[in-house]
């Protein structure tokens, strides 16, 4: 089923998508409509154009492919499913996602993967092909963040304060140089090839979705970032 996205109000567009009697829905000429995929069940959405903020918020049992860039807060509190973006992502990409996978071909904005978490068998994964802005993985409590830094040479592909408040989960950052001024509460080490087993299937998918050679990914080192031991929040209080 195909829906024309031009000149249609977001609420009407989302209603049309929800009510579409087809498991695969294509929307053409999207121009900034928000909340696409929020509350949609059991569908594959193929989106052409530029979806607005909060694409795939609370995504559950639904997959989204975007041919274009996306804006802010994509996959906010996403439960499961897959979002594939053939373009760049914005700020707070994957905010508090607890399941599913997001692949962004290009870059991400600020606070990517903020407050990502995991529980039981749910473990979210977010793969960004290019570079990301500051505060990557802020408050990360679980899940896997991967930044491939494609097209970025001789600089670490994240902005400042990478992993601030990180207290769970793991990041894999591909870079030919180690991070500058890493935050003291993080453990950072260069990965051996076998350390990458965990992300291998997601790299494979990334390459196949965006037509990139796997060899071009593994030609640079990866750095693995995890929170250091010790609970620094418990030590800052005095019971009164």
């Amino acid at each position: 089923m195909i829906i024309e996205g031009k000149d249609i109000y977001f609420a009407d567009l989302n209603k049309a998508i929800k009510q579409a009697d087809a498991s695969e829905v294509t929307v053409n000429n999207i121009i900034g409509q928000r909340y696409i995929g929020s509350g949609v069940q059991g569908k594959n959405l193929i989106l052409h154009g530029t979806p607005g903020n909060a694409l795939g918020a609370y995504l559950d049992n639904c997959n989204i492919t975007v041919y274009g860039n996306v804006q802010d807060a994509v996959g906010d509190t996403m439960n499961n499913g897959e979002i594939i973006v053939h373009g760049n992502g914005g700020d707070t990409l994957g905010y508090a996602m607890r399941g599913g996978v997001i692949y962004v071909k290009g870059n991400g904005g600020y606070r990517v993967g903020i407050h990502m978490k995991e529980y039981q068998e749910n473990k979210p994964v977010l793969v960004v092909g290019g570079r990301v802005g500051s505060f990557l993985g802020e408050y990360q409590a679980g899940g896997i963040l991967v930044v491939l830094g494609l097209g970025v040479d001789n600089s670490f592909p994240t902005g400042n304060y990478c992993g601030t408040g990180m207290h769970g989960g793991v990041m894999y950052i591909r870079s030919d140089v180690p991070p500058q001024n890493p935050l003291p509460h993080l453990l950072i080490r260069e990965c051996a090839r076998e350390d990458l087993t965990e992300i291998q299937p997601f790299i494979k998918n990334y390459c196949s979705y965006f037509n990139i050679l796997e060899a071009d990914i593994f030609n640079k080192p990866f750095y693995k970032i995890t929170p250091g031991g010790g609970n620094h929040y418990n030590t800052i209080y005095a019971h009164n």
Partner: protein
Amino acid sequence: MSINFIYPEYEVVRNEKRCIKCRACERQCANEVHSYDQEFDCMEAQESQCVDCQRCVTLCPTNALKIVKTNNRYRENANWQQQTMEEIFRQADTGGVLLSSMGTPKDYPNYFDKILINASQVTNPPIDPLREPMESKVFLGKKLNKLEFDENDELLSEIPPQIELEMPIMFSAMSYGSISENAHKSLARAATELGICYNTGEGGLNQDLYQYGANTIVQVASGRFGVHRDYLNAGAAIEIKMGQGAKPGIGGHLPGKKIQEKVSRTRMIPVGVDAISPAPHHDIYSIEDLRQLIFSLKEATNYKKPVIVKIAAVHNVAAIASGIARSGADIISIDGFRGGTGAAPTRIRDNVGIPIELALAAVDQRLRDEKIRNDVSIVVGGSIRNSADVVKAIALGADAVYIGTAALLALGCHLCRTCHTGKCNWGIATQREDLVKRLNPDIGSRRLVNLVSAWNHEIMEMMGGMGINSIEALKGNRLMLRGIGMSAKELEIFGIAHAGE
């Protein structure tokens, strides 16, 4: 040792003639104050651990116990009082941020106590609620300014989603994690029986409690704990938590040791890992951004659930509320600075924010001035202590109130203000299985139903006295209020006359 010694704040007074050494006090105290000395066949007390929760006192079968505040005093000083000095000792000892629980105990003015309620005499008959019809039901949500009908008198206008309450009182947000499963069960059952709502707080909704969904408000906070599609659709409404009266401007932090298997499942986070609620929602830096979260929630629930935005009462609350009313929210909830908390930095709890009475009066007036008062309902909380406070709040412009501390008191809380230790002897603010069992949800819910039913009856008595027979007619009816002992400025903010005027 000597330099950091603080004399125990409370002393355990044991009447040896009455004490039968049954050791009930020892079994009841999670703080391990009481112990039995076999050699000397006597009970002992480690008073430095005592928090004055009164658990041992109430369960002593022979009334042999009482807890008294120590009369050991530092040299008197009106400026440097004992508490002030001890806080300095604690910080000098630990280097820590002082952490406290529940609402501020400081002696700030309580304006509810400076407001008096009117009654009819001669010119307008009082109404007897026991024998005459009286409406305590309220609907919370956006109200349309006009209704449109077709030629057959069928309603054309789409009525925005509403919360229907049998009385203008709800249980305020307290998360599973900060309080126990049995406390949540008590609140959920009582809310269902009363035809009102309780609020999950930001800790998600336990699977067993989905059955009470029609009487549940589900909360979405910056940590997004336990938020998913079924959760959002489970309740009567969704509340976005932007702030909390006891700690405006800061986030929350549930220590990993409180995140057991069940709490982890409900919050949808790993076991044993700290649950951090950031101070801001990092996708909300403006009213426009708030609108975005509101509508993403409305989209996820097909526009069937009213969305509440909860903020702390702060200095510019009226302007903020005006923005929220324009953001698409259906209900604004305002939490005053005397509101409770499971843990907050002492300095913030005791110094940040403003009283709910002033915030409410300012917000209601602002929304009326801007002709957007009907676009939202207003719910207020932050130390509503009795039915008279409820009546005064409604007359100042509230649609309903949230009660938190009062509800916990009904469940057995004695306001010892040490929730942050996780060792609540009353089974409320704890996740320790042996302590949680002490709160029986059958008894807990019964006591909550008793409390709120009694308040509702009192509210109707007071309304009847004024010759008013519905909450709707009391709402914003400031002519029914008079100030006592207030300055001209205070009266101006409240929009009420002084007693005698």
